[in-house]
Every structure is written in C-alpha cells, then in structure tokens.
C-alpha cells in the first residue's frame, strides 16, 4: 500500500485490530476511583496558594511593633483603609476565579475548554498584578510618611539630598517588585505555554 495517497490510509486505519493494551470493566472501575492529575487540578492548587501566600506574611509580622510604627508615622487610618479594600478585592477575585473554575468542563469543545482554562489562570495573573501595584502604592506611602516625619528630618545630616533618598528608595522598591513580577511570569508561563500554543493553533489567523 502506498503512503502517497492519504485516502488509502483510511482503509489501513479502519482495518487496524484492537489495541494491544485492553482494559476490563473491573480495570475501569479501579481507574474511576483514582485521582486526576490534570493541569486544571494543578492550576487550582497553585492558584489557591497564590491567593493565600501574600496574605500569610501578616502572620509572621510582629503586630505590636507594626502598630507602633503606623502610629508613629500617622499611618494607622491609611493602613486600615488599605486593609478594607484588600479584603474586598480578595473576595471578588476568589469569586471570579471560582466561577471561571466551575465553567471548566471536559465536555466543552476543544477551543472553549482551552479558553476557559486560560481565563481561570488569567484571573490569578490579575490578582498578582493587583498585589504588586498595592505593594508599590503602600511602599511609596510609607516612604512619604517616614521621610516627612520630624524625627527623620532631624536625624538627617545637613546637606543630604532628599531627591537622592527618594530616587534610591524608588529604585529599590521597583527592583523588588520586578523580581516578584519576573518570578510570577515564569510560573504563569510554565502552566500555560502548551495551552496558549494550542489555542493559537485553533484560531483563524494562525499558521499551522
């Protein structure tokens, strides 16, 4: 049989015997009991960790000294507002994530399923970006409060440039946020590379 003609391959395909690997009904019953190790399960685990971990930092902070620090620089009310916003934002993100997660179904069309998984993961991406932004804003807010405090101003040697202090502070803050962002990009890409490639392969303008 020639491999030249693809039509003739259909006969070859149809006439192939049963697979050498065969499972009995009993085997299938056992398989059904096992746990899935699908990408969706991993996305759920990793995402929940990502929701929880940034907030766990609070558990390791010394509450009293933090409170004294906030009071010293008049940040107590500001931080309270940030906390309230943060809780609302987290609940909203978890709700959206859960809704997207529930939508994922192996019975969908291939394209819809790929899209649904990517969408679920994207929610977490935005959550991380929100966290980085809020960290940046709080950081700047703290710098401002500390640098403008009387105690800090008094401790400065004469001739110290405030502009220089600000530039260095912002560079260090940006660097810290950039490292977090890069780390996250790698983690995000690790899970989605294959899915994004397949999604692109299904869209109209992609070269197969």
């Amino acid at each position, binding site marked *: *049989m020639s*491999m*030249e003609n*693809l039509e003739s*391959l*259909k006969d*070859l*395909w149809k*006439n*192939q015997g*049963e*697979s050498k*690997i*065969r*499972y*009995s*009904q009993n085997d*299938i*019953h056992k*398989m*059904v009991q*096992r*746990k*899935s*190790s*699908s*990408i*969706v399960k*991993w996305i759920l685990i990793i995402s929940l960790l990502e929701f929880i971990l940034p907030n766990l930092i609070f558990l390791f902070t010394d509450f009293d000294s933090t409170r004294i620090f906030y009071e010293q620089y008049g940040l107590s009310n500001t931080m309270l507002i940030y906390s309230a916003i943060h809780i609302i934002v987290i609940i909203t993100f978890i709700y959206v994530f859960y809704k997207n997660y529930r939508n994922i*179904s*192996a*019975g*969908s*069309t*291939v*394209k*819809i*399923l*790929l899209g649904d*998984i990517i969408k679920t993961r994207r929610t977490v991406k935005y959550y991380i970006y929100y966290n980085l932004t809020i960290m940046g804003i709080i950081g700047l807010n703290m710098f401002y409060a500390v640098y403008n405090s009387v105690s800090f101003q008094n401790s400065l040697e004469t001739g110290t440039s405030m502009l220089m202090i600000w530039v260095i502070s912002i560079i260090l803050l940006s660097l810290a946020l950039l490292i977090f962002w890069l780390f996250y990009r790698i983690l995000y890409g690790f899970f989605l590379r*294959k*899915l994004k*490639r*397949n999604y692109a*392969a*299904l869209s*109209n303008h992609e070269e*197969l």
Partner: protein
Amino acid sequence: MTKELEQKFAKELELHQNIIHKVCRSYTNNEAAHKDLFQEITIQLWKAYPKFRGESKFSTWMYRVAFNTAISLYRKTKRNVETTQIYDNLKELEYHDYDDSADKQLKLLYKAIYSLNDIEKALALMYLEDKSYKEIAKTLGISEVNARVKMNRTKTKLKNILNP
C-alpha cells in the same frame, strides 16, 4: 444510583475503548505514557458522564473528552522523544526495514501523526476516522471553513512526513 451509573459507564467504555487507545497512541510515544493518558481520559470521561445526555453518540462524545484531555488537561510526566529522532526512526524503518505488512505501515502512520502538533493530531485522527467537517468543527469549536483550511494544511504536512 452512582453504582448503577458507574456500571453502565464501565460497560460502555469497555466496548468503545479502542477509540481512546487510538488517541493515546497518537499523543504519546511509549506504553507507560499511553496508560497514563488513558487513565486521565477515563477520569475526565467519568467526571463529565453525568452531564452526557445522549445529545450526540457516546463515541462522538468520547472523542471530544479524549481530545480535550490530550490537548488541554493532560500533563506529561515523562520527557518525550525529540521530534528529530522520530523522523530518523521513520527513515530507518522505510529504508532498512521496509516491507508491505499493514502493521509496519500502521506503525509508520502513528509515528507520523505523533510528529504533528496537538491540534493537527486531532485533525489527522478525525480525517482517518472519516468524520464530517461539521463534526470536526463541532468537536474543535471552530468554523467549518476554518476546519477545512486547517485540515488541508494537516493533510499536506502528513503527506510530506510520510513521503520525505
């Protein structure tokens, strides 16, 4: 009720398992990975089974879930053989080991399918199964026109791999 449903499911799956084996053989390159993928497809089929209302044939629905698992849900646990190596094996088989037996031809065909990308694999399988463009489009979730364009490209690619 669940017990009954599970029994019905196991019975149908046992009967139609060859469909899944074909998908597994196309998406993996060793027996361990084949079995691993079969396991995951079975779990996904079982999870989706209560929602299967018989709006399509059981085998059509199985195809969709099997492709979804292979394309989107399955995470390979072992590194796969590099594509170049597959091409080498292909040539080797053709020049040194060539005979007309259907089995050898089938092996070559599976190797060729394996070297395609994930979406092309699904297209090639559905072509060989003689599925209509309507069904292909419905399974993948794309338009029939798009399905035709992609199918033509896949066929050309498959032809080039089989006849280098």
